[in-house]
């Protein structure tokens, strides 16, 4: 697939002829210099944005054939997200932030499930705290809990340790992979080599393309797959 945007200097290609597939339960790191197109690729994979050409198939469903609401539905069912800047809702407590995806899906046991997951990331005693009352590491743990509470098939993470010190970053990375030890597929964008090395596969991007023959079109097409293919 390709992604072009218009700019004052004319059309700009951010993602160029990228095609790969990720198997269920696999962990993939997207690395590369700033401006290489990693975050754009992540947005395309999660259906937050649409490619100019090409298709994105997530959990057996072609995102590129869906409207915004259709893609949102797929995300609600299959996707979790972790961001570099955490994106906690400031007016909600830690518990309420984690409850949010369950509430959107209409789950009745949102409170107990969210509390369990928060306890699992070591924040069982900070349920009623607001984001501004938590440290960076704690905020990212809340974000992790929020991303995994609905047990998504695919977890996308954009620089999950980018805003954290080494020790805290390490702790978050460990949690991320613990959560991924089941069947969850993990796709993360990172500058952190140690984090990338924990992944089963590392895809390097530069100037919008995948380097080093990492393009891989030979994966199985199981329903829980997340894969991007050429048009």
């Amino acid at each position, binding site marked *: 697939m390709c992604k072009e945007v218009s700019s004052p200097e004319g059309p700009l290609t951010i993602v160029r002829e990228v095609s790969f597939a990720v198997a269920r339960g696999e962990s993939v790191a997207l690395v590369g210099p700033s401006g290489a197109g990693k975050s754009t690729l992540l947005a395309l994979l999660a259906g937050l*944005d649409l490619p100019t050409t090409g298709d994105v198939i997530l959990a057996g469903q072609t995102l590129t054939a869906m409207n915004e609401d259709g893609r949102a539905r797929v995300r*609600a069912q299959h996707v979790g997200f972790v961001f570099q800047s955490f994106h906690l809702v400031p007016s909600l407590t830690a518990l309420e932030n984690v409850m949010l995806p369950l509430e959107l899906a209409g789950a009745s046991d949102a409170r107990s499930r969210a509390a369990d997951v928060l306890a699992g990331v070591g924040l069982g005693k900070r349920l009623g705290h607001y984001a501004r009352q938590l440290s960076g590491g704690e905020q990212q743990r809340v974000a992790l809990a929020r991303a995994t509470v609905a047990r998504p098939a695919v977890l996308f993470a954009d620089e999950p340790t980018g805003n954290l010190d080494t020790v805290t970053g390490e702790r978050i990375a460990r949690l991320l992979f613990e959560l991924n030890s089941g069947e969850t597929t993990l796709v993360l964008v990172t500058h952190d080599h140690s984090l990338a090395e924990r992944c089963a596969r590392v895809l390097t991007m530069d100037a919008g393309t995948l380097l080093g023959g990492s393009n891989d079109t030979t994966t199985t097409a199981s329903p829980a797959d997340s894969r991007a293919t050429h048009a």
Partner: protein
Amino acid sequence: MHSLRLALRAMRREWRSGELAVLWLSLSIAVAALTGVGFLVDRIGHAVNLQASEVLAADLRVESDAPIAATEQAQARQLGLSTSSLISMLSSVFNGDANQLTNVRAVDAGYPLRGQLLIADHPFAAGKPTRDIPAAGEAWPDSRLAAALSVNVGGSLTVGSRDFKVTRILISRPDQSSTFVELAPAVLINAADLESTRLIQPGSRVEYALLMAGSTRELDAFRHWHESVKSAHERVAGVADASPQIGDASRRAARFLALASLVSVLLCAVAIAMSARSYVRRHLDVVALMKTLGASRGLVLAVNLWQLLLMAAVASAVGAAVGWVTQLWLVRILQGFLRSDLPPATAWPALLGFIVAVAILSGLALPPLLQLTRVPALRVLRRDAGAPPLALWAAGLPVLLALAGVVYGTLGDLRLSAWFLAGVGAAVIVLALCGTLLVRLASRVRSTAGAAWRYGIANLARRRSESVTQIVAFGLGLTLLLALAILRDDLIVDWRATLPADVPNYFFVNIASDRRDDFERELQLLGAQVTRMLPVIRGRLVDINDQPTSEMQFQDQRGRRFAEREQNLSWAEDFGDDNRIVAGHAWTAADRGKALVSLSVEYRDSLGLKLGDRLRFDVAGESFNVTVASFREVKWDSFRPNFFVVFAPGLLDATAGTYMTSAFLQPSAGAMARLVQHFPGVSIFNVGDLLAQVRAVIDKAVTAVQSVFVFTLAAGLTLLLAAVQASREERLYETAVLRVLGANRRMIFTSMLVEFALIGALAGVLAAVGSSAGGAWLARSLDLKFRFDWTLSLLGVIGSLLIVGAAGTIATRSVVRVPPRTVLY
């Protein structure tokens, strides 16, 4: 229902975090102002109608020269009206040999249905109200009759062939002051005694009246039914036909209150619009996140719509409750003026409050909220991804519709509403242009200022659109507030000037022309300030432009009366300053003896006349053909002799007539009784009680106006809060950066003070100019005299500078307290 549950949760959480406080507050105040004033205006309207009713002693009267069919009273009762009957005739009443032509009035229980009888034990004494009527065998003569026949309580009077015991002196009755045609004194007796007086004989001239009181619906039903059964000699008189003297002040008060509440609503609307904008800005990330987590656009929209509706419901409930309490309090203030038997408050104002809340929210908050639903999920990764901007019509049209609806709903006058909206629109444009200019000018001078000042001014220039928005918002709010303050003072000055303490409290009618000078001298001996003495000539209008009035049809009831009945005419050299010529000319020396007439505008409107029309009057069998030379607006509440029809001097001089005058005096009861004995033919009317009532109305209306002002001020304050809240986050970030770069708190404080004070001062200057222009226009629409008040304007500028500067700085001081680390990391 899923979306409702989500909306409820979101509301609870946002309420807890204070996100919606300003929005709630603004909305509640808007609804409170509208419902509170709505109740009050409603009740003032009732009071005005009731006062007019008192002149009739009923809400509706059927009058006739022949007995009124019993079926009419039965029908009225069946419709739920309370009724009473009144039979009156002229007859000589005797005390021994002394006799006096008297208006004998036989009443039954319930009279008067509106207003009250005042009674005392001595003539001309202060009266006490009573709900009773004379018992069988009793008579209540009025002061004039008692004085003329030298009878007191305990004495007796002979009416027809029956003797009555005098048990009370009638000081006043509600239906005595409407017209001055009842020249004879009066005596009240019980209807049950009428037959035994044998006054009603074939050929005697008797007036029968059926009095009715009840709700408008019941009265309309009766009027409707009566149309089909009424006999030729029956006339119906309702509140609308009653005396024009009363109610001017009250009507103006009601209009002013409506305007004042509207200003509160507009200020709140601006605050709501600002809060909604900052709410949307703060929620861009949340909505993007919700979408990332799988929320559809429909769900986001539904949640937001539910929130809007819930907010409107709760805010209007709170607002209506506050409005209701205010109304209770206002009714307490107005106690004695408003009747205790007013219909209880209905749910209508509360419902209206909800409708207004929904309208304001839909117009001002819905468009930005709808825009919020269009935020792309991509924003979670790319901060610059926002919602596509709203088209101008999509943002502007709902605002315009909502405001137009609220303005028209409150003022109820299409023309005034259109002018008001156009005025506000023009003010916004002018304020925006001037604001932009001033902000540019300020940024030019910043290089000459110190660091804190420079940063403050730079802030103003950098956040140009926000600064201009704030200047427009404050400027508009302040303009309306100042204009209202100017008007309020004008209104109060004007009201008080209408009724100075020495306004005439007595009318003297039926003064014989040969005793005119004696009478005036006697009055002056009593220390009276006599206004003017005008002739009163009884005459009938017979032709209009050569067409007999008996052959003409008049839609207007008063017009019919003018054409059918004998009326009081006068002539005068000059009209006095309580008469304003609106068309034609005042009398000049050349007009003396010419066949010209000047008419009041009420007379013109009732009969549909224009300048140059020819009228023929029959005065004691003599015809006078006259041409309409001018129309006058008469200030009936000047309490001076005034006439609908005034001839040019020199035409009617020879006609037999009497004189009337009015005066301010505070006589002893004895002095008044002597005056009556010296001039037995003169009819005396004490309007002091009516005046006291009107004064009380004015004082209470002033209190009411001041209390509504509280809402307007509260609305202004929420506007300030909304403006501060709007830029808080941005300030938080900037301040953190500045502090990291080494700026101390003092410098940041000063710069914020400079910025807010400048906004306040700029808004103040614009408001001072705008309010004078707006005030002048509003004064015209309220029939007030506009006075430019430079102290108030100056006060506005300084007040705005201080209040906006101080409040803005205080409200944002927490920005400096938050450690930079918390903001930047």
